[in-house]
Structure formats: C-alpha cells, structure tokens
C-alpha cells in the first residue's frame, strides 16, 4: 500500500515538474502555434531571478530569508514575461504563420540568452542601455518627420550602425578606465546555488516514506498555476479575447479586438509561466546557463502528446509521462513482473530499460507508438479547421 502511494506520489511529482514547465509552452504553442525553442531559456531566467532575489534577502536575516521564495515567484514571472514580451514584439510578431522560421529564430534567441547570462556584466548592460537610448531615441525623433515612411529603411539601417558604434565605443572607453567591478560577470559561466529556505528542505513523513516539501510545494504551485490559467482563459475578459483570436483571428479583428495586443499578452503570459517553472525547478536542480536545455524536448513531448490547444490534454499527458517514466526508470515495472511466474523475458526487458538513461529511450518509443494510434494527441482538435 505504502509502496503504491509512494510510486504514485513520485510519478506525480515528476509529472508536475514536466507539467509546470510545459504549461507556458502549451499556451504559446497550443494557442498561438508558436514554436518557442527559447522557452527553456525563459525558465532559466526565472531560475536566475530566484537566485538574485535569494541574494537580496540573504542580508535581511531570518524571518525574511525564509520567505524569499514567495517573493521570487512574482519576480521570476515578471522578468520572464518582460523578456517574452520583448521577444514577441521584436521577433516573433514578424513570423506568425511561419512556424519553422519561428523555430529557428527562437533557437537563435536561446543561444543569445545563454551566452548573455554567462557574460553579462555592468559593462555589457551599460552598452546595451546606450544602444537602446540612441536607437529608440533616434527612432522616436525621426518618426515625427513627415517623410518617415520614405526614409524608414535607410533610417533604421543608419541608426542601427550609429548606435551600435556608439555603444561599442562607450564599452571600450569604460573598459579602458578599467573598473574591475564593471567588467566582472554577474553570474559567470558557473552554476549558481539556489538554496531552498529551511521549511522547504526535508519532507513530510507519511506511511513510512517521506514526501519532500520541495516536491509538495511544486505540486501545489502547479495546481495553482493551472487553476489560474484556467480562470484567466475562461472567466476573464482578456481570456475571452485570447480564445476568440485563437479561433478566428480576422473575425476577432473585425469585432474590434486588438489582436496584436492579445498576441503580446498571450506570449507574455506563456513566458511568465516559464519563469515560474524556472523558479520551481531551481528547488530541485542546478541553476546555470544550460538549465533550460534539459527541459525543452521533454516539455514539447508533453504538449504534443496532450494535443495542441488543450490544457486538459497537457495535464493528462504531463502526469502520465511522469508516471510512466518513473515506473520504468525506477525498475518498479520490472519488480511487478518478477513477482509473477512466467514473465522472465518481460522482466529482463524491463530491467534493461530500468536505468535513467534507458528509460528515456523507452518513453520516446512509447510516445512514437502512441502517436501511431492518436496522431493528433490525446485530445485532438476536431472539425474542418483542425488542420495539422
């Protein structure tokens, strides 16, 4: 009995990590059809935000430090959402309806973000600020001119060159002056440590095994996020608009829904959820530039198996992949069959896959097999418009 509950709990806790990581993706990919390969990097930003908040709270002492995780959640959400917003406005908005291109562009973004956290220092930040000041400042001034449309292309090119020139020059100047504090990387390429507050360490003893508090926290967080997203999409005005735009963009536009704003909002929401996921996984694993990479393929699998555009499907898929992964990887399946007579080959088979890396191979094979039966996922969209 206790073993059963433990197995179920462990499976669910693996599933809930997958789920919370996939939730943002389910929105961005499912509702908008955008393949965001930088999703993992948005999670990473969430994890780094947690790290920063932790360091801010550290000097504040005991009662405050215990609560830092609660403050880091909104911070992580906001940071990732803002970066997501910039990403949508700056890149993805030009690529709607071209998913493969979006895929490549977001991969580029993910490379940049990874290198960014590695090498970010005050110098880089100042240079970027200078660049933005000149570029966007110049744009605003030039936009007032009556012949803006005509000079647009040239103006952007020239502004781009001038402002990056100035930014680089400023960077070099500061570098010459030689303040080490300015050129010291904030995080460097090393992993940083996020230490959970004491109340999230250890675990709750139930029926002879221990449920880690961090896992319980993540499960609770996942449920809250799910409910929040459900409420937002189904009960709020903007949620209604988002659903409307998903179903029929041009009709929504005709009805006066600001589709561009809806796109930006949806994307920011998805990104923000990635930030929260990042905050959550920082309790379990490492925080480093490559943190996001570990999740990206798994989360896409969850969304694909669940059926695109269906939150419920994502939930079921996330949990079932988690449980299956656990059952195979921990050797429980092999154990079950050992107790029965005459299943020797089956036991050997499951034992072969009962290591963490082979379990991954097995789960993928199962996913492919599953897609043979239900190519559009657990809960496919139906109807004439449901073109894959």
């Amino acid at each position, binding site marked *: 009995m206790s073993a059963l509950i433990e197995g179920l709990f462990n499976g669910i806790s693996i599933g809930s990590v997958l789920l919370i990581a996939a939730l943002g993706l389910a929105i961005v990919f499912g509702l908008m059809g955008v393949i965001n390969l930088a999703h993992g990097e948005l999670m990473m930003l969430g994890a780094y935000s947690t790290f920063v908040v932790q360091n801010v709270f550290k000097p504040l002492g005991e009662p405050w430090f215990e609560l830092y995780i609660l403050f880091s959640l909104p911070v992580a959400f906001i940071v990732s959402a803002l970066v997501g917003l910039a990403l949508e406005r700056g890149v993805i908005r030009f690529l709607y309806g071209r998913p493969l*291109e979006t895929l*490549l562009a977001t991969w580029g973004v*993910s490379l*940049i973000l990874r290198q960014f956290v*590695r090498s970010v220092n005050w110098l880089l930040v100042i240079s970027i600020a200078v660049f933005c000041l000149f570029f966007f400042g110049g744009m605003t001034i030039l936009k007032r001119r009556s012949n803006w449309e005509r000079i647009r292309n040239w103006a952007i090119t020239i502004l781009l060159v001038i402002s990056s020139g100035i930014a680089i020059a400023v960077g070099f100047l500061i570098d010459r002056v030689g303040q080490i504090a300015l050129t010291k990387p904030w995080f460097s390429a090393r992993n940083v440590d996020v230490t959970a507050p004491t109340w999230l360490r250890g675990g709750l003893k139930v029926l002879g095994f221990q449920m880690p508090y961090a896992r319980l926290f993540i499960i609770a967080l996942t449920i809250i996020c799910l409910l929040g997203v459900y409420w937002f999409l189904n009960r709020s005005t903007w949620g209604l608009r988002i659903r409307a735009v998903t179903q029929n963009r041009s009709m929504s536009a005709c009805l006066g829904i600001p589709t561009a704003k809806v796109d930006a909002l949806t994307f920011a929401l998805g990104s923000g959820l990635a930030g929260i996921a990042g905050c959550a996984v920082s309790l379990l694993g490492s925080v480093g530039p490559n943190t996001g990479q570990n999740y990206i393929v798994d989360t896409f699998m969850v969304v*694909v198996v669940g059926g695109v555009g269906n939150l419920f499907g994502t939930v079921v898929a996330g949990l079932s992949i988690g449980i299956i992964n656990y059952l195979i990887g921990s050797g429980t399946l092999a154990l079950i069959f050992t107790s029965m007579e005459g299943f020797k080959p089956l036991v050997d088979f499951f034992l072969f896959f009962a290591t963490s890396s082979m379990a991954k191979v097995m789960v993928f094979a199962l996913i492919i097999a599953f897609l043979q039966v239900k*190519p559009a996922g657990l809960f496919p969209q139906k109807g004439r418009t449901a073109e*894959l």
Partner: protein
Amino acid sequence: MDSELNIGIYKKKKQQRKQLIEAGIIIAIALIFAIILPIVLPAFRLRLFGRFLALTIVALGIDLIWGYTGLLSLGHGIFFALGGYAIAMHLKLQIPEGQLPDFFTLYGVNKLPWFWQPFYSFPFTLVALVVIPGIVAGLLGYLVFRNRIKGVYFSILTQAALLVFFNFFNGQQKLINGTNGLKTDTERIFDLLVSSATVQRTFYILTVIFLVLIYLFCRWLTSGRFGRLLIAIRDDETRVRFSGYDPTGFKVLVFAISGAIAGIAGALYTVQTGIITPAIMQVAFSIEMVIWVAVGGRGTLIGAIIGTLLVRLAQTFLSERFPQVWLFFQGALFLTVVTVLPNGIVGWFKDYAWQKVQFLLGLRQPLVTYPQIEEDPAIQREREQLTRE
C-alpha cells in the same frame, strides 16, 4: 503542330547548352578544390577544409528535404553519426584475427558483439554507411508521415529522436565505447595509417568527388517531375493528395535519401576528424546544419554548399579569436537570416544584388516580361529579320 515541335527542339537545345555549361563550371570548381587547394593550403588546414566539404554534403541532404520538400529535420545528427560509426567500426576491426578493439577489454567484453561482425568486410561497410542511415531515416519517416504528422511536429519528433539516439550511444559503453567514441586516426586502412598524409589527401579528394556526385544526384532528383512533386508537397500537401499522389511514399523516400546522404557525409567527416563520438548528436549541432542551409538559401542546392562553407569558416575564424562572441554571433545569424534574408544569400543575390551588379556594370537590364516573348521562335525570327534589314 509544326511550330510547337520547333519550340520543343529550340528549348531542348538551349537546355542542353545550359546543362553543358553548368557541368563545365562544376568540374572546374571541383578541379580547383581537388588539385589546387591541396597545394596551396597547409596539411591541417586542408584537413579542416575537407571536413567542411563533408559538412556541405549533409547540407545538401537537408536542403533536399527542407528546401524542396518543406520538412525541417532537427535530427540529421543521427544519420550523420550512423554513417560515421559504420566506417569507424570497420577501421577499428583492422586488427589481427582474433583480437578485439582495445576498448572492449576495458569493459570486460570478450566476444565481439554480433552487429560488429559484418563490419569486417569493406564492401559491406561501404553499403552499410549509406543504407543503415537511409533505413533508419526511412523507418522514422514512415512512422511519422504515415499519420500525417508534419510541420513543426515532425521537427520536434526528429529532435526527440536525436536525443534518444544520443543517450543510447552515450550509455552503451560495452557495445560502442559510449562517450569516448571510436578513434579512427590510429587505425590502418589498406595497410596505411589513417592519419597519414597520403590517406588524408585521398579522403579529401574523395570528399570532393562525392560532393560533386551528390550534387549532381540532387540536381537530377529535383529537376524532373519528382522534384516538381516535392515542391508541390512542400507548398500544398493536401492538394497533392487530391491529385492522386500519396505524399507519404514520396516523403519517406526523400527523407531516406537525405538520411543516406548524411550517412556518407558522416563517414567522410569521421575519417578526416579522426574520431566519432556521440557528441556529434548534440541537439545544437543538428540545428546548426539547418542554419547553414538557411544562410546559403534554401531550395537552391548551390546555396546549401555556400552557406555551409561560409558559416563554418566564419565559425573557425571567430571562435579562434573571440570564443565568447561566437554564440552571440551565431544567435544573431539565426535571427537575421530568418527575418531579413529568408531566401538566404543566394536568394538575395538572385532577387536583388544581381540586378544591382548588372546595373553598375552598365549591362542591359532584363525587361521584366513574360519569358514567352523572349523565347517565342516567331518573335525571334521577326527580330532576326528586322536586324538583317
């Protein structure tokens, strides 16, 4: 009827001439690569360039499925690695009868695993390095395309498959030496050390030859009715179905071909690198392959080649000098190519720069009109008469 026949002959002649010229240019470039570069470049630079050329071959394969058929594979590392492992296994077995490749003994393996056995044979290896990746690609393609999974779903699945293969190869030390991979440099082929200058030069020239052959093969594939069908599948697969074709078969075939090409490229790359490890199946490398094609211009075979060479050369150059900047640069490259240069360098050149160059050189601007008028024999005849008078 008569005039129609005339048009046909006229066109055929023109086409033949074009083909001849193209063939001439290709042979000329190939000769430059095969004869002049080995003289000019120092040995290890040449080896590097040989590896780049091997990579252009896999880029051709990717162009075939992405540029022409619209299938974006993020898993070509699998097929590349399979080809590489095939040749490496053969080289590993160039040891006295009864001995095992050295790494086996370290892990307590005393008997050669069964799937190593056939790789004693050189002909089998040659066939295997094409056929195995081809079959794996075909199988994966069949399982995916059969269910009409396409677009980004296909891409994601290929990426997941890549990850699985990576984990599998990484973990199977007793079978294929896991992370450490297989070294080929210290092995012998036809009683010559693989890393020796003669063998390496031969591999280089072989790479050039294969590049030309595979380029021509891809040209042939994409120029006929088959190629037009691939484009049709890319543009509107549903319509192709309603024209009575089954796109699944075509897609499986072309994906298998692309995988086989990647296998050849992988083998050539491996012998010139000296080692094959599962690291070749990292997610990033397979996505990089796609960007080579995108930079050069998808849907143009020559673009795939140019793009690969440019990006790889830039990478060597930049990463040698500023390893930090390279990732930024690579990221920016992805962004720019996708947003500003969707047709790549060759596309941009065709659409825009070529006209500018012509204009600057004072050449005649081609009149943008229906080509029919330019090619209509009646009009040509009229023109001739006019000039004669």
